[in-house]
């Protein structure tokens, strides 16, 4: 194993700016740095693609989108930890589209295995495989991966920057670098001499980039502690620039009408009424959609509403029932995957009691607060795009293909995102702005979708069916056989994102079903893939959002059948499989004072779901208020291993729970006549302040590897709530949303 040791040592020494873009494992190609996309002006030193030092101080070029998850603040803290600056003094800007900004953690998720039981070796291997995403230009924010991705790279960037600035100071002062120290954005030399980083910036550009070892955890000042958010001041004063806030000289505003029937074309349209309306400047035929460009968004929207369009009908099933019949039909095919196949599920163990259940979950929209929008300026030989997006290189590639320009001629400016949740990894809204701009050569155009357009032209969380057979014997779980059918987000969404056909067993499709840390001797999970019908995409926690409901609901049904306390039942299964999963259950048990008994009129449910590397347990309490249901309290515990910012992590876990509860209670996209029936928040509502329970969050840092924060809080919310409702009413909800069967206050 000498070679492994060597790899480990080399990975530790990757401090050189010259190779900071890549992790030094494997072949020459891994070593080869991705080109540095930043061109510094005079008097500025670009130390590497992440840190920028000039006369105004230190700027972090953050290639991950700030969509509320706090990545800018946490990455600034990681840089600051090594660079010896106050994170609050670091300016953070969104980076351009560039290969150097590939996401090294994202592809690691695609490795075989259950995740929770991966060895250190597999985690290292994950980082190697992560390098493949560089070749795929995967500069994306998603998969709860930003801390895993940035944890080492950002600190290395900070350390290398520090040492290079010290080297510049050493050369100027004629003293050895080893005699220099750094503090508060300054290099300190013997004899009380101090030189600010800003002062050294120009010289630092001329010295060789320096490597440095990372500081041990015992020396950390910022990691593991709450760091005030860098974007807070802007966001409370209305000065944060979201996509819709882009203002370019001479800019016009556009509105759009797209075919409500997915994938179908436009036969003709009549814009005679629209053309004479106030503020209208151009009516634009987009081939399969129509847009109006005008002097303000609302006037453009009024005009586009007045256009009569003859749409082609859909070639897909037209109603919710017909769509679900197709999902059911997928069970008749051979399974796409059998990711877990332990023991024997074909015969019922002798003396065991059988449970059969079918669960059905609806399609869901993302409903980000900021509707889809993008701004574009096309000049014939170049294109500029301003967009709140989760994948700049994907936006760039797609716009280049649309316009026939080279990718280098397409500049992508990423703004703050008014929510992402996976919706903004798609590029459809950018493409539409580009198409309009192409017909408005030389004029910047901002396209903003109406909320109705946003709701009816999403890439939806797929509707899904879970068919389960399970068995208990002598109070124990002895068998689980789950079959899951849905459209595949991996095949359709990732295929769209990468421009590659995706085939083979789809692990993402059965995430949070096959890889639950539960010791059940006979355990099989099969994934079935329904044909593409409705556009589906990455919705916060992806397939774990439905599989988490299936896998935890069946465990709750088993516990009930076995006559066992549902928390103790789960705890026994988790403890025998993976300790961190047991710990989060014990934590919510203790926080909630779980006794297995509730007074009349009160119900409690528990759920445990492992996803994105993080086990999360939740307890939810509901109360009967004269026949209506109030969700009164929730407790959630998650073990993320090492946490960069506990306060921000807590906010993410809470947010995941809120997003999950919104979907569980109210979320449903239905179809009729080939179109989405929901239009706006009145028929696609979310948790509001009075309906949100009081929540206690516990962030554990005990497992060995870093887990995700943004997504794993979502999957347990629906089963925990459904289990609480079962406890309260004796009614088992096997379909969502729950407002179909319960009346919420």
């Amino acid at each position, binding site marked *: 194993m000498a070679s492994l040791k060597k790899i480990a040592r080399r990975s530790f020494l990757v401090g050189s700016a010259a190779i900071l873009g890549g992790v030094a494992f494997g072949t020459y190609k891994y070593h080869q740095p991705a080109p540095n996309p930043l061109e510094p002006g005079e008097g500025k030193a670009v130390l590497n693609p992440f840190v920028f030092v000039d006369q105004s101080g230190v700027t972090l070029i953050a290639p991950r989108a700030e969509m509320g998850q706090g990545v800018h603040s946490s990455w600034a803290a990681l840089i600051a930890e090594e660079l010896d600056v106050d994170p609050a003094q670091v300016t953070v800007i969104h980076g351009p589209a560039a290969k150097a900004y590939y996401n090294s953690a994202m592809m690691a998720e695609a490795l075989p295995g259950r995740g929770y039981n991966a060895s250190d070796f597999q985690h290292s291997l994950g980082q190697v495989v992560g390098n493949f995403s560089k070749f795929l230009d995967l500069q994306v924010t998603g998969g709860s991966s930003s801390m895993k991705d940035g944890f080492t790279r950002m600190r290395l960037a900070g350390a290398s920057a520090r040492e290079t600035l010290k080297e510049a100071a050493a050369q100027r002062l004629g003293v050895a670098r080893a005699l220099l120290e750094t503090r508060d954005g300054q290099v300190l030399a013997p004899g009380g001499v101090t030189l600010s980083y800003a002062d050294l910036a120009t010289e630092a550009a001329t010295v060789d980039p320096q490597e440095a070892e990372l500081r041990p955890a015992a020396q950390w000042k910022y990691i593991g502690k709450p760091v005030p958010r860098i974007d807070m001041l802007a966001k409370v004063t209305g000065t944060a620039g979201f996509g819709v806030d882009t203002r370019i000289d001479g800019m016009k505003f556009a509105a759009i009408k797209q075919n409500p029937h997915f994938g179908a074309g436009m036969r003709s349209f009549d814009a005679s009424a629209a053309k004479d309306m106030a503020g209208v400047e151009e009516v634009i035929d987009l081939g399969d959609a129509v847009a109006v460009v005008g002097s303000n968004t609302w006037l453009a929207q009024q005009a586009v509403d007045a256009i009569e369009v003859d749409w082609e009908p859909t070639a897909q099933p037209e109603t919710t029932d017909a769509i679900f019949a197709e999902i059911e039909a997928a069970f008749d095919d051979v399974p796409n995957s059998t990711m877990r196949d332990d023991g024997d599920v074909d015969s019922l163990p002798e003396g065991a009691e059988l449970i059969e259940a079918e669960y059905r979950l609806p399609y869901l929209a993302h409903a980000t607060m*900021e509707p889809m929008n993008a701004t574009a300026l096309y000049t014939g030989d170049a294109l500029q795009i301003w967009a709140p997006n989760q994948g700049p290189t994907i936006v760039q590639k797609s716009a280049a293909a649309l316009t026939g320009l080279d990718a280098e001629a397409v500049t992508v400016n990423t703004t703050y995102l008014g929510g992402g949740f996976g919706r903004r990894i798609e590029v459809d809204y950018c493409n539409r702005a580009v198409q309009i701009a192409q017909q408005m050569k030389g004029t910047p155009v901002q396209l903003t979708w109406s909320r109705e357009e946003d709701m009816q032209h999403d890439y939806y969380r797929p509707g899904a069916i879970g068919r389960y057979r399970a068995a208990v014997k002598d109070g124990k779980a002895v068998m689980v056989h789950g079959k899951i059918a849905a459209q595949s987000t991996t095949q359709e969404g990732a295929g769209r994102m990468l421009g590659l056909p995706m085939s083979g067993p789809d692990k993402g499709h059965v995430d949070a079903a096959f890889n639950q840390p539960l010791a059940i001797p006979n355990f099989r999970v099969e994934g079935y893939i329904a044909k593409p019908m409705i556009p589906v995409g990455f919705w916060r926690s992806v397939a774990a959002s439905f599989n988490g409901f299936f896998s935890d609901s069946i465990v709750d049904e088993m516990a009930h059948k076995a006559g066992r306390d549902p928390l103790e039942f789960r705890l026994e299964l988790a403890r025998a499989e993976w300790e961190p999963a047991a710990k989060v259950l014990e934590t919510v048990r203790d926080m909630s004072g779980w006794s297995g008994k509730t007074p009349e009129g009160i119900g409690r449910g528990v759920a445990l779901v492992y996803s994105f590397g993080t086990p999360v347990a939740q307890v939810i309490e509901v109360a009967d208020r004269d026949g209506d249901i109030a969700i009164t309290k929730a407790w959630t515990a998650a073990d993320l291993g090492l946490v960069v910012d506990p306060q921000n992590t807590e*906010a993410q876990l809470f947010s995941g729970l809120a997003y999950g509860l919104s979907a569980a209670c109210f979320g449903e996209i239905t179809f009729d006549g080939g179109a989405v029936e929901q239009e706006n928040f009145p028929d696609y509502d*979310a948790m509001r302040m009075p309906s949100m329970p009081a929540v206690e969050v516990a962030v554990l840092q005990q497992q060995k590897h870093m887990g995700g924060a943004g997504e794993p809080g979502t999957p347990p919310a629906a089963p925990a709530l459904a289990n609480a409702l079962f406890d309260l009413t004796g009614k088992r909800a096997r379909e969502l949303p729950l407002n179909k069967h319960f009346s919420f206050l």
Partner: protein
Amino acid sequence: MSKTLRINGKTHQVDLPDDVPLLWVLRDEIGLTGTKFGCGVAACGACTVQVDGEAMRSCQLSLGDVEGEVTTIEGLGTPDNLAKIQAAWVEHQVAQCGYCQSGQIMQAASLLAENPAPSDADIDDAMQGNLCRCGTYPRIRAAIHSAAKMMQEA
């Protein structure tokens, strides 16, 4: 038609049809982009501004119907000179994506003007029309309590 508006203490002359909602006058004509578009049907509260101190959904307020002094988030305080309520928002690190927060703050400021010491139930009641998809509600509630305290002590 031509109309004179008083916004954040300044006078603005606009020449637009009467039925254009104030939201779009602010954002696309005057360049005050702090007020956000979320739904266009008064269902999310992202566009909340104050007219003579009262919280209103600017997506439903036609230009022709605007009477009185309009205050937007930009008029409440600036990064260099925060209003107390904004300082409370910073203290509690309320915002995540932040898109709804202008509306949340304008709604809360209006509540505090009417009710200087609101209970949790008063806050729930006043804020239920303001949607936040990130789920920042508990910190919003805490910030409103803090702001109430700061204002009383001032």
